[in-house]
């Protein structure tokens, strides 16, 4: 596609529900990132993929958060047993390569998750 696409744009979940957020990166982009952005805050890094390999998951806040990118393209961020503190915008970004020359990340419009 022309840009990074995220779905759904908005998600309301009842506390305790599981949710799955999808990210379609730009075709051919090797690197994929997930961020969590609370209201009025800057995005916080969650996890990073290079192709299908999850190279860094140091930002995942708990074991309820899980991300995958099985074929090195589309990625899914799953949150189990959602809590109110999970309410945030979840941003996905992709970049062409992993080298310093290809560090420009392109962002999707995010998924706004509200846990009630």
């Amino acid at each position: 596609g022309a840009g990074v696409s995220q779905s759904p744009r908005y998600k309301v979940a009842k506390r305790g529900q599981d949710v799955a957020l999808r990210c379609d990166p730009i075709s051919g982009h090797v690197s994929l990132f997930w961020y969590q952005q609370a209201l009025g805050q800057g995005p916080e890094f969650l996890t990073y993929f290079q192709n299908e390999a999850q190279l860094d998951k140091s930002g995942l806040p708990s074991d309820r958060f899980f991300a995958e990118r099985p074929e090195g393209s589309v990625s899914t961020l799953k949150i189990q047993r959602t809590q109110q503190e999970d309410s945030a915008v979840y941003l996905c970004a992709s970049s062409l390569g992993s080298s310093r020359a290809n560090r420009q990340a392109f962002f999707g419009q995010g998924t706004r998750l509200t846990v009630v």
Partner: protein
Amino acid sequence: AQTVTQSQPEMSVQEAETVTLSCTYDTSESDYYLFWYKQPPSRQMILVIRQEAYKQQNATENRFSVNFQKAAKSFSLKISDSQLGDAAMYFCAFGGKLIFGQGTELSVKP
């Protein structure tokens, strides 16, 4: 730990004037990238400008330029000839996996 600090939660500028947004960071690395991103209400992050730490020359993109002071770990963004469309949240970010600051909300007065 790597941190990014934006000390100005809000800034305001008159249309056609110049405004400077501040950013400081902390790292032990010697070679890295720094970025300024713009986030309008649509939420989509848009890259404004980037700077490679090993380059001494300050980056410039049309009306946007940076003042990069490596020793001071300072990376400010200057917007010249401000336009109404420049109004947005601006985030400074560091490194390959992007460590973001807290953001500065810029308003532009007509």
